[in-house]
């Protein structure tokens, strides 16, 4: 049974069809939200909320775009709203938080936890405006046209946001690398004096 038939059944309140859609998308949505928020528990919670909305708002789905775009749109909107709320709820000034980039280790190995942490922190610092298209493109592998449909912006805007987001990400990673290099130099010179 194809996705369009499944969503049609969900529109009529079919829970089995809803379960099938959930089985198809739950891992992808949790992964996407995890890379967006950096918090697995929050990602799972937001993914659950996403599927609840898929069920209750199924009547609003129009088969103009793909079902995956629609589900990702719901997930992205929820993630952005949550990010906004979290920013508002934060009571600690950003100036009081130490820049921890230098504390990580930067190797060109994706399995390295230091790199993952640096990347994670760099992603967290990206504005959701850039984070959403970057994660959709580089983690989920969507095309620019699909991302344009998901975030409801022209393709040109999507291209610009991906480019700007990647640029910011690269600069932040370079900064982390420089910080680590400076830290290593300091340690070497201190050991040399001793």
């Amino acid at each position: 049974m194809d996705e369009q038939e499944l969503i049609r059944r969900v529109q009529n309140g079919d829970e089995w069809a809803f379960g099938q859609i959930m089985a198809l998308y739950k891992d992808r949505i949790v992964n996407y939200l995890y890379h967006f928020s950096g918090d697995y528990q929050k990602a799972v919670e937001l993914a659950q909320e996403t599927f609840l909305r898929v069920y209750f708002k199924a009547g609003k789905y129009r088969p103009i775009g793909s079902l995956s775009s629609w589900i990702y749109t719901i997930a992205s909107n929820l993630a952005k709203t949550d990010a906004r709320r979290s920013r508002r709820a934060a009571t600690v000034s950003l100036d009081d938080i130490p820049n921890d980039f230098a504390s990580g280790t930067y190797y060109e190995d994706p399995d390295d936890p230091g790199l993952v942490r640096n990347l994670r922190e760099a992603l967290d610092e990206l504005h959701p405006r850039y984070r959403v298209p970057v994660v959709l493109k580089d983690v989920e592998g969507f095309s620019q046209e699909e991302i344009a449909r998901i975030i409801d912006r022209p393709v040109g805007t999507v291209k610009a946001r991906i480019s700007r987001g990647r640029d910011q990400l690269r600069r932040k990673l370079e900064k982390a690398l420089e910080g680590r290099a400076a830290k290593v130099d300091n340690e070497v010179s201190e050991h040399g004096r001793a």
Partner: protein
Amino acid sequence: MEGHDILGKMRKVGAPPDFDDRVFYRLREARRERSRRRAVLRYALAGSAALFLAVFLMLDRGILPGRTFPGPEGKGPALAEKGLEIQAPSALWGLGEAGRPSVPVLETVDYADEVRRSSPEPRTVYILEQVSDVRSSGIYY
């Protein structure tokens, strides 16, 4: 290696094993909550409509103070049918300024003379002519 290249190779995570059960549980809860909210909304709407009707009837029946007034003669029964209280003009008598008794003067006004005629035709003039031979007098208009 660029940041975005590494992003694609980052560890992928999946949904926990009990994900479906939790979603279905929340679905049932949300349904229950929705039906409860709908019932509350229905009762609230019915209650506010009833309240509105009650206030309207109270105002209409003149239960609120300051609603009594003297009615013109002959209209009494009609107004009484509507539940409006009619007071006699004598009921308005009372003590006026400086404690002296005062009598309200009610003067009827015929608005027919106040209104200009809208018909373009000239007014009919009746000429009264004396027909008796007993007295001679002028013709009065």
